[in-house]
């Protein structure tokens, strides 16, 4: 039944087969996507017609590779910019939230904490439409009363950043709070006794202690933002992010360029995942 009990032959074999099938199920779509990015065919399907780098490098007229595809390249840049701002903002506010809920006392703390957790259980589509509605109403209000036209309140780059920030911050808050709970308060007290102010303590002692959590949650926030679809769908303006742009291409029929983009995404996120794991392991050993 478990590793310390005497093994039962049929049970162990059946379990092994199940696990192998499961991992096959897990990886089949990704591996196929990667392989077909290099197939010398105009459709992302078998039969295999030979190896080619056309879907990355080709520069027309028959085929246009990813590195010459203006719309996909610019959507990658937009996604990276969005993710950059979202991770900066959410790590800042999420960390402040962690300090607030772990180290401060104030009335209605439990209620506010509950409220801060809700963004993770609100479906992303709902967050998207409610922020869209509010921005739109505010825009109409400012236009009618002050004659001001505020571009920020229309579906746009910054509205996407705000929409993603609204729930990714909760994620950062949870990760940083967990680390902050392991912090030994006597270190802080010692510094305070020696005459440091509260902010000097935070800057010189607490923040260095939190560093692994800040970097880790920042990286995951970046990835969550880069890949977000549901919330972004309703807030996106003329600058489409990569997931939206890919979605439109997949919906309207597919070319192996999508496989090329997917290949790059799979490779780069896997590298990031490994780095994150290695860093996490080192932190645990400390």
């Amino acid at each position, binding site marked *: *039944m*478990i590793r*310390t*009990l005497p093994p039962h032959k049929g049970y162990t074999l059946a*379990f092994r087969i*199940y*696990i192998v099938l499961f*991992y096959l199920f*897990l*990886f089949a*779509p*990704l591996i196929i*996507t990667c392989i*077909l990015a290099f197939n010398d065919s105009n459709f992302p399907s078998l*039969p295999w017609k030979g190896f080619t780098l056309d879907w990355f490098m080709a520069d027309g007229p028959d085929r246009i590779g990813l590195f010459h595809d203006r719309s996909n390249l610019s959507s990658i840049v937009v996604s990276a910019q969005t993710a950059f701002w979202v991770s900066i903002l959410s790590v800042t*506010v999420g960390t*402040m*939230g962690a*300090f*607030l809920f772990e180290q401060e006392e*104030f009335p209605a703390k439990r209620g506010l904490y*509950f*409220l*801060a*957790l*809700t963004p*993770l*259980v*609100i*479906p992303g*589509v*709902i*967050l998207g*439409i*409610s*922020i869209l*509605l*509010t921005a739109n109403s505010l825009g109409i209000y400012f236009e009618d009363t002050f004659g001001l036209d505020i571009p920020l309140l229309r579906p746009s780059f910054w509205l996407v950043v705000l*929409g993603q920030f*609204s729930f990714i*911050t909760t994620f950062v808050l949870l990760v940083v709070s967990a680390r902050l709970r392991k912090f030994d308060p006597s270190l802080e007290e010692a510094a305070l006794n020696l005459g440091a*102010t*509260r*902010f000097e303590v935070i800057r010189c002692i607490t923040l260095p202690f939190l560093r692994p959590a800040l970097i880790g949650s920042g990286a995951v926030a970046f*990835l969550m933002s880069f*890949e977000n*679809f*549901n919330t972004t*769908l309703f807030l996106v303006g003329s600058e489409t992010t990569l*997931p939206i742009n890919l*979605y439109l291409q*997949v919906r309207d029929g*597919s070319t192996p360029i999508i496989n090329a983009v*997917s290949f790059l*995404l*799979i490779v780069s*996120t*896997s590298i*990031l*995942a490994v780095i994150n794991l290695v860093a996490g392991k080192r932190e645990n050993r400390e």
Partner: protein
Amino acid sequence: MKNHIRLSLYIFLTPVLLWLLLLIVIPHIELLIMSLKGTDDLGDPVWTLANYRHFFTEQIYWYTFVRTAVYAMLTTVLTFVVTFPVAFYITKVVSVRLSGFLTIVLLMPFWVSELVRVYGWMILLRESGVINHLLISSGLMNTPIEMLYNDISMMMGLVYTSMLFMAVPLISSLEGMDDSIIEAAHDLGASPPTIFCKIIIPYAAPGITSGSIVVFMLALGNYLTPTLMGGKNSLWFTEQIYNEFIASFNWNQGAAFGFLLLALSSIIIWAGLKLTRQELGRALS
């Protein structure tokens, strides 16, 4: 000293309050207000329940709503059934050295965008897809069949995209379980099914709850998988919301649908927490 503490409280409190008020509380109040508004015969804005009445009288909306809820629950159950043996194998059966490796490999695919994973399934399953090609070239079939764009492929896609959110809490709750509890039960003569029902499941209950909540919420609010893998008649409620907002431009109706979806997901999550006597904070962390 006292002043310093108050100052730091305000510095931390202000951004958090701004975030929660401006991006969470006010938008959801606005969602509710918009859902209760409409235009009268002259085109002037009025308060009305028409958007909700519309939902209850049009059969197709009702049907889609219930269908989405039932399928999301089914997804949650299936995801549990598929991932539990894996979580158990990784934490309890396989040798310790291999278990770390298997966990890392298990998490890898989920770092990749959901869109890429769904796309991978599309090129595997569709009529001109890889599986059909393999079946025909191996002589098992003569004509390709369409395996995509039906409820089964959609369910499979939903289970596939949500497995991680079940696996992680299951693994972490099973990891905390002392093997000797199972050994003791075994020595006392309990059969594997008894051990499973009376010991393992109750022990893993917190992990099962938090996994189920997240999986349910994600399945309910999923838009990509039902539209791309379920095809034209997938009838997922988020699609209705999208249609009202983007295609029909009827934001009031869309807001009502959104509010109904939010209410449904909140009620089911709340009931799940109550039934298993857990708090949201613990379930999420």
